[in-house]
Structures are given as structure tokens and as C-alpha cells.
């Protein structure tokens, strides 16, 4: 276990020093600062106001940028080390592949998750001093959702990283996955729905197995437990499960997806030539 922690610790230290981490932290911290400067907490739209409105805006932007940030910063972790011969040297020491791979994942997870969480904490602390009501239920839901969304894309990134030979290809695949999950599924499914080629239940099922879609729906479910903004889709979702079960699913499912991809990546890493 000491080697696992060692790899995680050193990866964390190395990442924190990297320029991408600075940009990454500034983006999320900057978003919160921008919202306060823009007076988002003082405005009221569709009944949402104060910190709730700020967190809702934050999560809506996060869903777009967090996955691509995680993918592009992580997808080269193993393939990049392989490409520039770092892996060849670092694995000439008696470190098991399991410790190396999972240590890297743990280190990288802390790196990508903490700035997102800290940005929300800053909002809560600032809001507290400004005398705003703290929406703890929303804060905890978003903490869980961001944790599981980070896991999903970290797992996918390590999976890609375990089999690609060059960093450019890894980046290309990562970008494609992001676009596919973010936009294509929506566009494709809406067009299929409009053409009435498949029944709605199947289309909603396909949408809901996309972790990003699930995240989106879960993120609004606390503000709008009946999911009325989603129209008839809510009928299918809330008819099959209660709102609390749906929230639990929206945290557990992306976590599981991330874990499965990370495990697949490890199996490939173990079975493939290392350099």
C-alpha cells in the first residue's frame, strides 16, 4: 500500500505544480468570483435566488467544462509517460503495476476534484459572510454529483490512456467522447424522436445511460422535484422511480461507469507491453 500512496502523493505534487492545474483552478474559482461580481446572488430568475441560483449556474457551466478539462489533462497521463520514456524508467523500480496505475488515478482524482469542490466551498463561505441562506441540500447533492462525474471522466481518460500509443490520438479520442456525450446524443435522439422511429421510452433510456444527461437532470431535480421543466420526459423518469432513488442513481451510476472504465484500463495496462 505504501507504494500506492507514494505514487498518488507524487502525482498530486507534480500536478499541482503544472500550469494546467493553475488554469484549471483559476477557471473554476474565477467562475464563482465572476458570479459574485455580476451580482448573480442578488438576482432572481424562475424562483431561484441567492446562493441556490449561483450554484445552479455553476453546475450548468461545470457540466460542460469539467469533463473536457478532466479528459484533456488526464488522458495523456499513462500514454504520455509511455511516449516520453518516463514509464520505462519509473517502472524499472520494484513498483507493482497495480500500485502505479491506481496510485496515478487517486492522485489525479484529488487534483481534478478538489478545485471544483473548493470553488463551491468558497461560494458557501462568502455567501455565509454576506448573510445569505446556505442551501445545504443543494451543496451536498452537487458535491456528490461532481464526485461521480469526475470519476466517470477520470475512468474514461485512464481507459483511453492505457491503450493509445500517442498523446495526439488520446486527445482526439477524448475530444470526440466529450462532443459525443455532450451534444451528439441530444441532437441524434431529438431527431430520432421527431422522426418517431423509436418509442420515447427507449430514447429516454438511451439518454439516461449517458452520465452527462443523468447529471443534468439530477442537478435540476432539487430545484424542480417534479422535473416539470423537462416536460413529458419527467413522466417516464418519475414514473419508474422516486425522486430520491433517482438522485441516488444519478450519483451511483456515473461512479460505476468510471470504475468499470478504470478497471478495463488497468486490465489493458497489465496485459499490454509497457513501453
Amino acid at each position: 500500500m505504501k507504494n500506492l500512496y507514494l505514487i498518488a502523493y507524487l502525482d498530486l505534487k507534480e500536478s499541482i505544480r503544472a500550469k494546467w492545474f493553475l488554469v484549471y483552478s483559476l477557471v473554476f474559482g474565477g467562475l464563482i468570483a465572476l458570479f459574485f461580481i455580476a451580482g448573480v446572488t442578488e438576482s432572481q430568475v424562475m424562483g431561484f435566488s441567492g446562493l441556490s441560483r449561483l450554484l445552479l449556474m455553476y453546475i450548468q457551466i461545470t457540466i460542460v467544462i469539467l469533463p473536457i478539462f478532466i479528459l484533456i489533462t488526464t488522458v495523456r497521463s499513462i500514454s504520455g509517460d509511455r511516449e516520453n520514456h518516463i514509464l520505462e524508467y519509473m517502472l524499472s523500480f520494484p513498483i507493482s503495476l497495480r500500485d502505479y496505475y491506481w496510485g496515478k488515478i487517486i492522485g489525479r482524482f484529488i487534483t481534478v476534484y478538489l478545485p471544483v469542490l473548493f470553488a463551491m466551498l468558497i461560494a458557501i463561505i462568502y455567501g455565509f459572510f454576506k448573510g445569505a441562506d446556505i442551501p445545504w441540500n443543494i451543496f451536498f447533492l452537487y458535491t456528490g454529483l461532481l464526485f461521480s462525474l469526475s470519476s466517470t471522466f477520470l475512468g474514461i481518460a485512464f481507459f483511453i490512456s492505457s491503450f493509445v500509443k500517442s498523446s495526439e490520438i488520446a486527445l482526439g479520442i477524448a475530444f470526440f467522447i466529450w462532443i459525443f456525450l455532450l451534444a451528439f446524443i441530444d441532437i441524434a435522439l431529438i431527431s430520432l424522436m421527431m422522426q418517431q422511429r423509436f418509442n420515447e421510452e427507449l430514447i429516454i433510456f438511451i439518454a439516461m445511460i449517458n452520465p452527462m444527461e443523468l447529471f443534468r437532470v439530477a442537478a435540476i431535480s432539487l430545484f424542480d422535484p417534479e422535473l416539470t421543466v423537462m416536460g413529458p420526459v419527467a413522466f417516464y423518469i418519475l414514473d419508474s422511480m422516486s425522486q430520491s432513488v433517482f438522485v441516488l442513481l444519478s450519483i451511483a451510476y456515473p461512479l460505476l461507469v468510471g470504475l468499470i472504465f478504470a478497471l478495463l484500463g488497468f486490465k489493458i495496462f497489465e496485459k499490454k507491453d509497457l513501453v
Partner: protein
Amino acid sequence: MIKVSQLTKKFGSHISLDNVSCTFEKNESIALMGANGAGKTTLIRSILGYYHPNSGEVLVNGLNPVKQRTQVLQNISFVPQLPPPIKLSLEELMQYISISAQVDTQLIMHYADEMKLDIKANIHKSFFKLSGGMKQKMLIAISLAKKSTIIIYDEPTANLDPKARDDFYRLLKQNEDEKVLLFVTHRLEEVKELVNRQIYMDLGKVVSDEKV
């Protein structure tokens, strides 16, 4: 100590190692030579357990380096041809090595000192920011401090000035007893004084293997 039996390694249709068999025993210092693409690096990477062979096997002290990598690597020191761009500081790199391979950091410092590398002055500097020669000296110091019974050097003196090469050969002479020293080199004259066996490879095969 190292037994390579009918080892074949292919990359796609290219055969990098073609049914190679050889053994390396303790107190042997071997110069492994051959043209580019002869299979030298593939052979040492197979010994280090980086490659899954297509057929044949490698045993290091009776252990399979792919399946029992941690036990095998406990006894191997390796210095690659080009120092990799590791972003860890020297302090962190030594921490990695000291915890993973139980290497005494004071001993790394000692050998670095012998190689005229001032670690203390560069302790917080990233490894990749050191000059080529300093990186190579650091890797050599680590390889000697690890006290392995098998030491593999892939063109270790490529970045060293003549004085540093002399220091390196002097330290090796002091540390060669009861060990296997395997040099991948294109310049036999540089290691001629150290080696007692020369192996030539070509097109993935051992074409000549002689004691000197």
C-alpha cells in the same frame, strides 16, 4: 542469473527478437553491441519485464520478470540511453526510489558526489530541468546506490564529459564484484577495460558471443 530461452518478440510483422537464447552469470561484464534495430533494446526491455514475449521466456534468478516484476526488479538497476523528462524534483525522485526500492538516499548523495553532481544545490529543481550530463550522473548515482546484482546500462556515457566518464568507470570498477553488468553500446573502446564478454546482435539474432 539471467536466462533467455528461445525468446521471440514481434511488433506487428517486424521480428525484433528472433529465437534468442543466452545466459548471463555473475561476475560477467557484457558489452551488447549491434547496429540500430538489431534487437539490443528489445532484449534488455524483455529482461526488465516490459514486453510480453511471443514465444520463449526470460528468467531472472529463476523468476519471470513479467509475472514477478517486483521481486525481479528488486535486483536490477537500469540507466536508459536518454534520461526521461521526469518532472519530479530531485528530492521527490529520491523519495520515490528510497520508498519503492529501499535505497538509502544518503548513498545516492554519496555516489552523486563522487560523480561531481551537487544534489543539495539542485534538490528542489525538477529532474528534467537539469542539463543532460547532470541527469545522466543522477541516474548513474541511483543505479549504484541501489546495490543491485544486475546492472543494465544503455549507452550510459552518451551525455558525459571525459572526466565524468572516468569517474563513472572508476565507480563501476569498485562495484562490479558478484554482479552482472550489461552495457548496450556502440563504442566498444569505451567499455573495453570493463567487459569480459562481447555479444553482437543483428536482425534480432545473436550473431557472435565471445569471452574476452
